[in-house]
Every structure is written in C-alpha cells, then in structure tokens.
C-alpha cells in the first residue's frame, strides 16, 4: 500500500474551504504514485467516483440508469500530470479551469460499438501499445473491441489502484467532506424540527433535499432514509440472516407518536460525500430503556474511539466494539462497524464484514484516512439506537468531522 506524509501527524490542518487547484494537483500526484506502485502505465476510468477523484470534475450526478451513458470518462497517464477528460454536456463544467484545453475532449459513448470504434482511435493516440493498462469497467461494446482497445493484453482492474490513492485524504479533500457534512447537518436541523406525528416520511426527504441544495450541495447521493423501527426483531421485515433489515425505503407513510426512526442521508460537495445518521423519536421523550440504548451505543463508540489512531487495524476496532457490547457484534450482519468515505459514500476499508478476520487484522490505518463509524444496538421494545460518526485518523487518535447533537437521546 502506498503511504504518503501529506497530513501533519500531530495536528491536522484542515482548511475552512478547500483549495480546489491544490486538491486537483495532490489527488493527481497520489494517483500517479499508486500507478507506479502497481506497475500501471495508464488508467481508463468510467466510474463516476473514480473520474471525480482523478480529474476534480464534480457535477450533479444522474440516476444510475442514465449515468452509464451520459458519463465523463478519464484517461490518466503515469507520465502526464494532467488527466484527459471526456465530458458530456454540462457535467464537470467547473473543472475546466484546471485541466488544460488540449486534455478536454468531447463525450464518449462506450455503450455502443460505433462509440468504442472512436474510443479505440483515442486510446491508440494516447496510450502506447505496450503499456500496462488498468480499467474500472468494461461495457459490452468495449469487450467486443478488446483486442483493439488493449493490444498489450487484457487490462487489470483499476479499482485497487484508485483505492490505494483514495485511502489517505488530502487536507483539501477532508475540507470537502467536512463541508458536505456541515451542509447536511444544517439541512437536517430543520428536518428534525419538523418531525411530528402526521408528517410523512417523504415530507422529510422533500425538506432535506431543498435545504441541502440551497446550502450548496452539488448532488443528492442517496435516497433519504427515515426507517421506522419495528417493536421487535420478530415483528420486523424478514431477512436472510434473521437480524434487522436496513435500510428500508421511504414511503408516503405518516409518522406516529413514539415511532423510532433510524435516519441516513448523504450529499456531495465538490464531489466528496457526507454521511449522516441519527436515531430520532417522533413526538415523544425517550423512556429510560431507550436512554439506556443510547448510552450503550455511546459506550461502544467510546471504546472504539479509544483504540482509533494511526497504526490500529480494522480488527482492533471490531474487537473493541464487541468487547464493549458484551461479546456480541454491535453491527448488522450485512453491514459493518465502519467504512471509509470519499468520492463514494462507502469506500475501503469496511470493518467487520465477510472480507474476514485476516482482512480486518491486516488493514492498518494510515494518518489521514477518513472513517464512518456506525455501531448499532438493539433491544426489543426500544427501537434500538444507531448513529454515524465521521473521524479523520491522526497519529495519536482522531479528529471528529461530525457535529450534530443526539437529541432527544442522551443527556
């Protein structure tokens, strides 16, 4: 794994607003260093999150069904400090000032054989025939034209290369994540004020998205979740593992007094994601048992944060969480205790998944990694408790990026 000393080890200096030109330069340097480490000469990137990282382009993302046609594509060369960017209309308009004009190109249509014929000429022009190439996605048309696109042999997967670069965030990237969190939190404050019996779940989504855009969000990343928790696991939705379902989709259902909501929303700011999650109670004050759920959750989080620092492993955090929860895993079997965040809402590492104990124990945290911790606790009859906390790993501990109260739970 590539390591960088881009973040001060003792005190992370996160600028109030990101310097986007510096971010572009430093992201590019990280990516090219990861390419060198992996012996890759050229990257062909189709995935939105990867293109955002490689080019600094940021745009209001489309639905998945449209975004594989109208999508920016990047080609990154190991010996060129600027990426080549192929832009559809409007996407990435703000990035234009940083990428030189001779690296900006008309859009590509890689779903179609005719589009890939053109792309083969582009690739032949930019990438030497004997280069080692990595790509993050192959469309059907690209597979049919594989011999011409990749004359040097089958390409390797770009995901581990980009993943290595993305792991440690630069101060400007952290500033973007923090700004995305601030926008999210400011929008959520007003949503929480509107929470009352009779309000529909979808009304909360409506209010959130309007406020988030007014406050400067680039895109909504996730269908907002306001899941009403069941009285008991047995009365909850059927699942493959018998534990709780999450996230269940938002409807026009009216909220009722006493409903416990597990919330989850995410937006982007300059291409970087926020992640917000809190447990709310509709029109009521928590009972002593519900307060106890929160305190148990807080104890678990504190135990995890106590071991969170550079050099710790995913396994260390998972063990601390399990010990603080009486020997049981305080996360849902289909999710994780925590995950990374960046240009994608969930990035490596994932803690406590089916990737296994060996993966967890071998994944060592570097300074500057950003982690979302989201333990859950559950006792039938309380609605349980779940919240999300974002931290930046430092030499001796962490810096918190989340700034939102736990009301109506807690002190």
């Amino acid at each position, binding site marked *: 794994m590539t390591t960088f000393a881009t973040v001060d080890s003792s005190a992370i200096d996160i600028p109030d607003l990101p310097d986007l030109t510096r971010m572009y330069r430093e992201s590019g340097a990280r990516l090219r260093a990861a390419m060198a480490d992996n012996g890759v000469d050229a990257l062909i990137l189709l995935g939105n999150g990867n293109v955002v990282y490689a080019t600094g382009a940021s745009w209001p993302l489309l*639905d998945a069904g449209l975004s594989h046609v109208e999508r920016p594509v990047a080609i990154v060369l190991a010996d060129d400090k600027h990426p080549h960017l192929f832009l559809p209309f409007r996407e990435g308009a703000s990035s234009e000032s940083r990428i030189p004009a001779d690296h900006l190109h008309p859009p590509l249509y890689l*779903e179609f054989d005719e589009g890939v014929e053109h792309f083969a000429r582009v690739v032949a022009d930019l990438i030497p025939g004997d280069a080692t190439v990595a790509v993050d996605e192959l469309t059907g048309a690209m597979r049919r034209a594989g011999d011409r696109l990749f004359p040097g042999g089958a390409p390797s997967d770009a995901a581990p290369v980009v993943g290595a670069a993305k792991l440690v965030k630069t101060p400007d990237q952290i500033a973007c994540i923090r700004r995305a969190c601030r926008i999210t939190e400011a929008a959520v404050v007003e949503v929480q004020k509107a929470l009352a019996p009779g309000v529909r779940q979808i009304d909360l989504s409506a209010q959130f998205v309007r406020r988030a855009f007014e406050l400067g969000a680039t895109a909504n990343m996730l269908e907002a979740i306001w899941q009403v928790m069941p009285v008991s696991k047995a009365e909850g939705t059927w699942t493959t593992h018998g534990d709780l379902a999450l996230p269940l989709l938002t409807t026009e259902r009216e909220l009722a007094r006493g409903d416990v909501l597990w919330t989850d929303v995410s937006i982007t700011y300059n291409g970087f994601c926020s992640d917000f999650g809190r447990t709310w109670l509709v029109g009521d004050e928590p009972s002593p048992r519900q307060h106890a759920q929160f305190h148990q959750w807080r104890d678990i989080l504190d135990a995890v944060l106590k071991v969170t620092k550079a050099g710790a492993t995913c396994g260390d955090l998972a063990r601390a969480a399990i010990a603080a929860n009486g020997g049981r895993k305080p996360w849902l079997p289909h999710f994780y205790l925590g995950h990374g965040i960046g240009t994608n809402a969930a990035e490596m590492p994932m803690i406590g998944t089916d990737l*296994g104990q060996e993966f967890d124990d071998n994944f060592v945290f570097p300074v500057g990694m950003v982690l979302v911790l989201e333990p859950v606790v559950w006792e039938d009859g309380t609605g349980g408790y779940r919240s999300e906390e974002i931290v930046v790993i430092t030499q001796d501990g962490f810096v918190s990026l989340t700034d939102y109260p736990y009301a109506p739970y807690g002190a």
Partner: protein
Amino acid sequence: MALEILPDARALRSGRRERALAQMEAHDLDVLVLGRQANVRYLSGAPQLWVAGTRPFGPICAVVRSTGEIHLNSTWDEGIPDDIPHDHLYGLAWNPMTLIDVLRGIDGAATARRVGTDALTPSFAKLLPMAFPHAELVDGEIAMRAARRIKTPDEVAALHGALRVAEDSLATAVRELHAGTTEQTLTGVMLEAQAAGGVSTPATQDGAWVTSREHPWRRARSGGRIESGDLVAFAAGVLADGYVGEVGRTWPVGDVDASALYDRWNGLWDKLAAACTPGRRASGLLSAYEAAGEPLPPMPVAHGLGLGFDSPVVTPQLRATAAAEILDPGMVLAVTGYVWQDGVGAIFGREAVLVTTEGPEVLTSSPSWSHAGVGIG
C-alpha cells in the same frame, strides 16, 4: 409511491420478463448476470435503494433461461415479488467470493454454456468462470437493450406517472423563477416538489441553469444568480416506480426579446416531432436540425426512456448507429430541441414522445412561454 414498498404489478413484471427471456433465447444466453439497476428492476420487479451515479459491476440478479428462475441480491423481502422465493434471495456482501459461491449454487450454473453480463470489471471477469465453469462469458447488455427498447402498455402507463411528477416539479420551480434567486435554489425547489409528489429519487439533478448569451452552451456565470434578461433552462428528471420521466422548458426573466428565438424553437420542434414516425430512421432526428437550419446541440438530440436510458441515443457521435436504428411503435423517446442566439441565450426544451402506429404521440404537456405571455419577474 404509496404507504408501503410493493413489487411492480404482476402484469408489468410478466410483460417485461417475457421480452427479456425471448431476447435471452435470441442471443443464445443460458444465464444472465445483471448488475445495472434498470436491468435488475426489469427482470425482478423489485424496487431497490437509489444511489446517485454509476456503480461498479456486481452480480445483483441472476436469471436462468431454462427455468425462468430469478435470484436476487437482497437481504430482506420487502418489495420482493412472491415469485422470487426466500431461498432465491442472497444478502449484501462485501467479499466477491461470497457472491461467487451464491452463483455457483444456482440450479443451471454448472451446465450453462453461455452467460451474459450487462457490464464487467476485470476482477469479475476472472472470478465468474468459477461459478460457471463450462460457460463462455459474453455481453448480455445487448440482449437487455433489445428487450427494453419497446415498451409494453403497462410500461407506458408507468412512464406517464413518472412524467406527471416531473412536469409538476418543473411547474413548481418555474413559479419560483425571479431575478435574484439562484440556479441552486430553483433546483432545490424542483427536487422538493418531486419528493412532495411522492418521488425522492431524481433521474437528473441539474434542475435549472442560466443560458449563456455569449456561448452556445457554457454556463452563463459562476454563482448561478438569476438576472433580469436571462433565459433560464429547466430540466426535470425523476425516477418514479423505476421509470425515468424527463421534461425541459426555458423561461425568460424580465424583459427579454426572445420571441424570434422561440419561433425558431417551434419550427425545429415541428420537424423533430415529425421525425418520430414509425419506420423512419433515428438519424431523422439529426436531419431535423439540419432541415430547420439549426446547429446540432451539445447534448444528444434524443434518447430512449424507460428504466433508465434506452436505445437509441441520437447524437452526431453515433451517426451510423442512429442511421441503422429504425423507430418502431412502442419506443418512447426524450427528444431535445435546442436553439441559441448570440446576445440572447438559448432555448432548451425536452419532450417525451411515444412512437405509435398512428405516428408520434407527445406525452408531455408542460406550458411553454408564448408571445401572448410575458416574461417572468
């Protein structure tokens, strides 16, 4: 949307599955392994969590042609049709090998000769042969594209629903248009209206922009503040019950002499609409611009509407593809008219058009600025 999450109606599901299975047969595919949200919904009929943007390929849904059985990546059964039993659901996983083990256990995997995927990563290209040891891995998107291209009557009904929400949200945003507001605020208003209308899943999030008076398509100014004299483009796109509804309009703010430009747009639109006639080539939509004497716009002139984008995508970069594509009844197109005048700005309009045996049927009916009216603000 309703009070609970429900699977797509049985008739909608079965009509789509029949089309998909017919294409699997035509393309000689024993198994389809799908990762794209639109394809997964097309075959499973199950709503899925909406996340913006592309996602890397993963095996979310597997369909076996010989049995018609569907296996779906879902940890719960909410919104899952009863023809996908519990033992055909497999939970979220982060280790690709967990998913490969699931696929390996599917009836028909061991004997499959040709397996189609709708996209692929180099990693899954290496792993999938472990699940399908005797199969050739081929492109399956081309079969899905052929299936999705023609809409069943139930799909057209679903598209009507999506378009209604998109049009209502556009009207709400237009009502908030005035000098001093911003592009961001108008987009927020539009997305709020969509959610209030029951749809918290946008298809597009670039809701409003000031068209440039100096450049055919660049952003007019940074900051996005609306000023008197602007022509402001609105683009509403929603994903309702899985279907994309899109509509676009342009409205003037304050005193703008744009009537000649609107006349040009109307003249162009007449030719674009006429091009959506069954039996004609999709490239007729490119020719319509040339016949109207208008330069081709920076965005595709048309794309198919359905569960996401559908064929064709009509753009000068794909001229030969458009020339080979014959418009058939049952196709639904989002058609874009775009005209620009130096010193005035651009007029962008997007309509949904159903190709019928009788000719083009315009499904969108949002009001447009007319000479009789005055600018807003």
